[in-house]
């Protein structure tokens, strides 16, 4: 069994936000199956630099699946073929020698390309700014055990709160909807006592901002759940819809 791969990569190159982009084809040889996908790109980049060609730009930081920096459509799949796995945690043992791999940036109106595979995801920050918090100033807190939270609720809130904000849900959705992202934050707070006072305003403000940023609507194709590296489920979207209806019905 060979431990190394030879691959053909088709990579989206785009010099700037306004420049036209195109696919370029590269060959990489002797890629160890133990490498992560990004380490494979590192190897390619080192090679490009030595040939005098500018390296491929891609976002990454923690390389352990938690910061949400890395992205990439790999053969048409957000974060590649493995479920609940970010691109930085995807390993080359998943591929076969001779494979051709197509690598593109997230494609969505709300995520414009900055360069090559790097996109601008600041729309997510703006949605959070609209209401993704509990309004409590430093110093206002009561004892941590003063408010009891049933374990089941705490666990569910935690599961929603593990969203890494990478944008794969948007990239995977044919409508480029941000519903999974928004629903995860709305759910976390809807499930906790701390989130109750602003429950209605929060969901209304975040949904309004989401629409304003140019994300599409949700048509329940569930591609977002399949692509989510953090395992956020579409149950959250159902809860978001209920929260939204509740908020609009009870509005004064």
């Amino acid at each position: 069994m060979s431990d190394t791969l030879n691959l053909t990569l088709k990579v989206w190159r785009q010099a700037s936000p306004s420049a036209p982009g195109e696919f370029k084809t590269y060959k990489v040889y002797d890629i160890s199956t133990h490498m992560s996908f990004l380490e494979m790109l590192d190897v390619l980049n080192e090679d490009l630099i030595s040939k005098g060609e500018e390296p491929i730009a891609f976002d990454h930081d923690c390389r352990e699946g938690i910061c949400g920096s890395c992205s990439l459509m790999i053969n048409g799949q957000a974060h590649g073929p493995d479920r609940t796995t970010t691109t930085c945690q995807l390993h080359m043992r998943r591929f076969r020698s001779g494979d051709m791999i197509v690598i593109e940036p997230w494609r969505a109106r709300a995520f414009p390309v900055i360069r090559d595979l790097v996109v601008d995801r600041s729309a997510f920050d703006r949605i959070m700014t609209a209401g993704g918090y509990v309004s409590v100033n430093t110093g206002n807190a009561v004892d941590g055990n003063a408010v009891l939270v049933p374990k089941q609720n705490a666990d569910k809130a935690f599961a929603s709160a593990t969203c890494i904000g990478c944008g794969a849900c948007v990239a995977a959705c044919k409508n480029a909807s941000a519903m999974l992202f928004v629903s995860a934050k709305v759910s976390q707070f809807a499930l906790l006592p701390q989130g109750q006072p602003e429950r209605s305003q929060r969901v209304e403000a975040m949904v309004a901002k989401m629409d304003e940023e140019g994300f599409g609507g949700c048509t329940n194709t569930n591609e977002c759940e399949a692509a989510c590296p953090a395992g956020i489920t579409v149950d959250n979207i159902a809860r978001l819809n209920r929260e939204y209806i509740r908020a609009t019905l009870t509005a004064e």
Partner: protein
Amino acid sequence: MTTEAKPVLDGRIPAGPMADKWELCQRELKLVAPTNKRKYDIIVVGTGLAGGSAAASLAELGYNVKAFCFQDSARRAHSIAAQGGINAAKNYQNDGDSVWRLFYDTIKGGDFRSREANVYRLAQLSANIIDQCVAQGVPFAREYGGVLANRTFGGVQVSRTFYARGQTGQQLLLGAYSALMRQVNLGKVKMFPRREMLDLVVVDGVARGIICRNLVNGQIETYAAHAVLLCTGGYGNAYYLSTNAKGCNVTAAWRAYKRGAMFANPCYTQIHPTCIPVTGEYQSKLTLMSESLRNDGRVWVPLKADDTRSPEQIPEAERDYYLERRYPSYGNMAPRDVASRAAKERCDAGFGVGSSKQAVYLDFTAAIQRDGESTVRAKYGNLFDMYQKITAEDPYKSPMRIYPAIHYTMGGLWVDYYLQSNVPGLFVLGEANFSDHGANRLGASALMQGLADGYFVVPNTVADHLATRKLTPVSTDHPEFRRCQEETTNRIKKLLSISGKRTVESFHRALGKILWEYCGMSRSAKGLEVAIQKIRGLRTEFWQDVRVLGASNNFNQDLEHAGRVADFLEFGEVLAQDALTRNESCGGHFREEYQTKDNDTLRDDQNFQHVAAWEYAGENAPAVRRTEPLEFTEVKPTQRSYK
């Protein structure tokens, strides 16, 4: 090297009994009236736990805050990756915990090389942090009755660590980030993501602003303020391979150093015992397996050297649970420096496992038999998954293979009790300062420190700076801003013009190898001298032969990396120099010449019970070593024992 001749540094520790110092200090601190706060601008560089919490809290008070980070969002600071938990002296478990015990454990864990008063304050504030985070909606782990759950971390005998499965840092950071975003919405914080701070601007001796590169369009931008807070994290990436994120750097701190701020104890680096071992030359980072795993995992190697059997084939009687053997009262929960050295000792003696022989086992068989796989999965599921993704081995079935790796840096910019550096107006928070962990940090205490600094300490102490110092109006038109901007631009031009043959990455890797070999888990005077020569050689080569492609006026990641490596190449030498000058062993700084017969650290309190702070003396002059003596009034320094 000039030593001890210079006046010693004053940590400005408040008078009074230890337990009252912070309270008394707060009484003395000058305040800024609510209506005046809006007249002050504060720059916060970094949005991790330290910077995020500080920026949000200062904005809540009414200051105008500008917050900067190099990632595309404030939520991606490397605090996000912290796994195991955060300490607090709540004594919810009724197991004898107290502020004093947390203080004592931290002082002892730091091998008596930290400042007592800071550590005491940290322990006092720890409980408020948990309350604040709960109020923000941070979903900590809970018991069935609805109360908060705890686990145990290394170097202590109580259960005081709060956690959110293996993602505590993520949940705490998202809490601070949400508080920050709320202030953005209220117009009190302006966020500047994808900016890299490349210089500190000091006017009339006071920190008054920063120079940044806009990483999207390459513009060199200037920002002025009445105070600058550096919350830029640790320098572990000097070693190339570490558990830090790829972007972690020393640049912001190093640029401040070159503008006069002193760098304290750079040689205090933490090597974490439980990381996934190196597999190949292409490896870009190392992944931590949280210390919390040692609550249930047992560390062992075969009793027989060069044993090639698979772990399952090695019977119980032929295994050496060396931590339990050497440290019976702490066992697998011995502190990190002790556990790391013990792993190295076994591997160097030929007992290592796996193909590289540079690994030991972390075995969960006993825990799975005792509690069942589902219980173990509930506690550590995401860590086990991560291990499996990286190694393609199932840790529920066979033991993990682990080895120590660079993880955290106790050293950092020198600060006084107020978290102010020796440059007035420059405050340093979180991992970027040196303040609380001495020569070794205990697990679950970095998150605690970052949040204590940001939520509770700095909002008070910055006010004192603003209220007491006459701050003349300074705008970015000031000549000093122009000068620093020009220097930054020229440096970037220089990097792009060398057009050599060697990639930035290869220089970084080479530096990392030097530091790991000579300035890693064990150090010697001879080795450190070699390291210094090699680093100097590498630095010269870098400025002659590095190849950085592309332009300065667009998105250019290779250029970003080049600037960071250039700074690591200067900083690395001071790190090695500090290790060479400290002729003792303490915590993570292990000098082979100074050890007990059991291979433990041998301190020299007579000559080294002090902080070493390095002062920049010019481009070609050696850094000057200053000291701050450490006094212990509450805890008497002893030979640390975890036996």
